[in-house]
């Protein structure tokens, strides 16, 4: 039964701690969202539950977590819609040869390392209720994810979005994002059809039919929203309600089909008209509520599931080190080498690798899906959450060190010695 005071206390504590830790992270030149992700971990058994188990039991009694989970899932559905909304299919169409190769390598290389690692980790961190194929496909996907929304914000903040590096990065991240969701949907489909009575081919056909209806039918309907927005100059509450109804209906359909509700929300966002004013207006309407209130609930719920205490002993930390190394080498190494081979200078190539290595909350979404469908164990979930935090945390300082600082030094040198500037021949 819902105990409203407990739920209100939980939401208040999560909101307060998230803002506080987010503020601390902003002070150390990190993004607020990373602080909020860390806040979630701190509120879970890794810190609060370990330091003050009685207090933790009062704030987060196990029986009450169902309601927190439901709230966080609704927040996530809205957020996945926003991720899809920010994904402009034009960035996929405008790809250069370099972007095609780099994006595909940046998926396949970490995927390969994740798969290779599965040979070692499957007998050690999984059980026979999970097939090796599902485990490997999930590990590969978890390694190859890039946080498209976080990247887009970093590039915008750094005024890099229109630079060749920014264009290449955003194109690669968009491809990675779409590919990762497709593979993940496939894994969910495999797992759920293996458990249920509905045959795989039927679910697959249903999913393909649903996507066709969304792209060919619903997409046209959504264009009317844009026209209506232009006519009225704003997104009215009625328009917003209908859009949210569509998101919920799409989420319900994909959940019913056997792929997760989050995919449905993502697809509605992805097929929304991408006229920038319209997207901006819609983001303004939903972003603050989703990001400030609902997303921290999801981080806290993730943190309540992750327990660093499960990594007890050197053996577990060794497995974690392997995961971290595979994730970084796969994503950073794969992206950098591919970009370099296709003609991108070393500094830009390494900056691209650093940016692509950002996994952020997209990884957390994928990990929670993997945990929900039982493909990953609690310990592996914790290890992958820590990997996501570390790879996201390292982006800003590494980018500063490997890209911006040399760039500034070069600019200073050029300013001090004007005669050294090479003038291209006419």
């Amino acid at each position, binding site marked *: 039964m819902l105990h409203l005071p407990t739920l209100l206390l939980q939401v208040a504590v999560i909101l307060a701690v998230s803002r506080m830790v987010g503020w601390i992270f902003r002070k150390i030149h990190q993004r607020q969202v990373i602080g909020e992700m860390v806040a979630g971990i701190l509120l879970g058994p890794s810190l609060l539950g370990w330091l003050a188990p009685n207090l933790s039991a009062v704030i987060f009694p196990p029986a009450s977590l169902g309601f927190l989970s439901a709230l966080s899932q609704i927040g996530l559905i809205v957020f996945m819609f926003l991720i899809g909304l920010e994904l402009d299919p034009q960035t996929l169409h405008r790809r250069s*040869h370099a972007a*095609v*190769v780099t994006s*595909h*390598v940046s998926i*396949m*290389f970490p*995927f*390969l390392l994740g*798969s*290779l690692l*599965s*040979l070692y980790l*499957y*007998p*050690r*961190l*999984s*059980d*026979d*209720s*999970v097939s*090796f*194929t599902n485990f*490997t496909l999930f590990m*590969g996907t978890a390694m190859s994810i890039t946080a498209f929304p976080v990247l887009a914000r970093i590039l915008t903040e750094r005024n890099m979005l229109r630079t060749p590096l920014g264009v290449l990065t955003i194109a690669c991240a968009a491809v990675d994002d779409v590919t990762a969701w497709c593979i993940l949907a496939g894994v969910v489909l495999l797992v759920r059809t293996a458990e249920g009575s509905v045959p795989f081919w039927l679910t697959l056909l249903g999913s393909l039919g649903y996507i066709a209806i969304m792209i060919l039918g619903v997409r046209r309907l959504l264009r009317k929203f844009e026209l209506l927005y232009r006519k009225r100059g704003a997104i009215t509450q009625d328009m917003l309600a209908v859009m949210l109804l569509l998101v919920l209906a799409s989420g319900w359909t994909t959940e019913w089909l056997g792929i997760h509700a989050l995919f449905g929300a993502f697809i509605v966002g992805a097929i929304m008209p991408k006229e920038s004013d319209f997207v901006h207006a819609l983001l303004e309407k939903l972003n603050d509520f989703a990001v400030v209130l609902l997303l921290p609930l999801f981080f806290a719920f993730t943190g309540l599931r992750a327990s660093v205490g*499960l990594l*007890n002993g050197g053996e*577990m930390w060794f497995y974690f080190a392997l995961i971290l190394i595979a994730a970084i080498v796969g994503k950073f190494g794969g992206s950098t080498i*591919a970009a370099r*081979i*296709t003609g991108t200078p070393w500094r830009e190539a390494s900056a691209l690798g650093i940016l692509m290595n950002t996994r952020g909350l997209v990884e957390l979404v994928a990990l929670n899906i993997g*945990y*929900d469908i*039982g493909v990953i*164990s*609690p*310990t*592996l*979930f914790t290890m992958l959450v820590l990997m996501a935090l570390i790879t996201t945390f390292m982006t800003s300082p590494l980018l500063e060190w490997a890209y911006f600082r040399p760039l500034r030094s070069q600019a200073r040198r050029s300013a001090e010695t004007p005669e050294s500037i090479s003038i291209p021949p006419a």
Partner: protein
Amino acid sequence: MKAVLLYLALVGIPVLAVLGILQLGRGLTAPIAVAGTWNIEKNSPITNDSSCSALPISSDKPVLTITQSGSHLQLMFNDTDRTTLTGELHEQTISTANTPSQGQDAIGLEARVDRQAEPDSLQGVLTFRECPSRKAVTFTATHQNPVP
């Protein structure tokens, strides 16, 4: 032509390698799944001893929740202390490390998983290292549902 070759080398080879790994890994076996909630039934009477702390299975409906990561297990009882043990799974036998949480008596658990039963069942015994006057308690547990 160069671009196609480059693409095949950088993307095609890893794809083939992943397919090879999926084939190779089919022969791998993981430990049996024991994660989830187990309803406990005590087989032997419990002797009350005031010098010993309360039994973790003394409640009316004792429940054992197992969290599993490979052969590594965390076992938690539904008693007021939420007695938690860490253990290992060797083939079909669960044995705990006898290192309980802070403030709890050292409890040992050894159990054998019967997967032929429907639902899966556990035949186990609880031992009490720091309370020699208390005899070992045997129990049977049936699998309620798998978690995570």
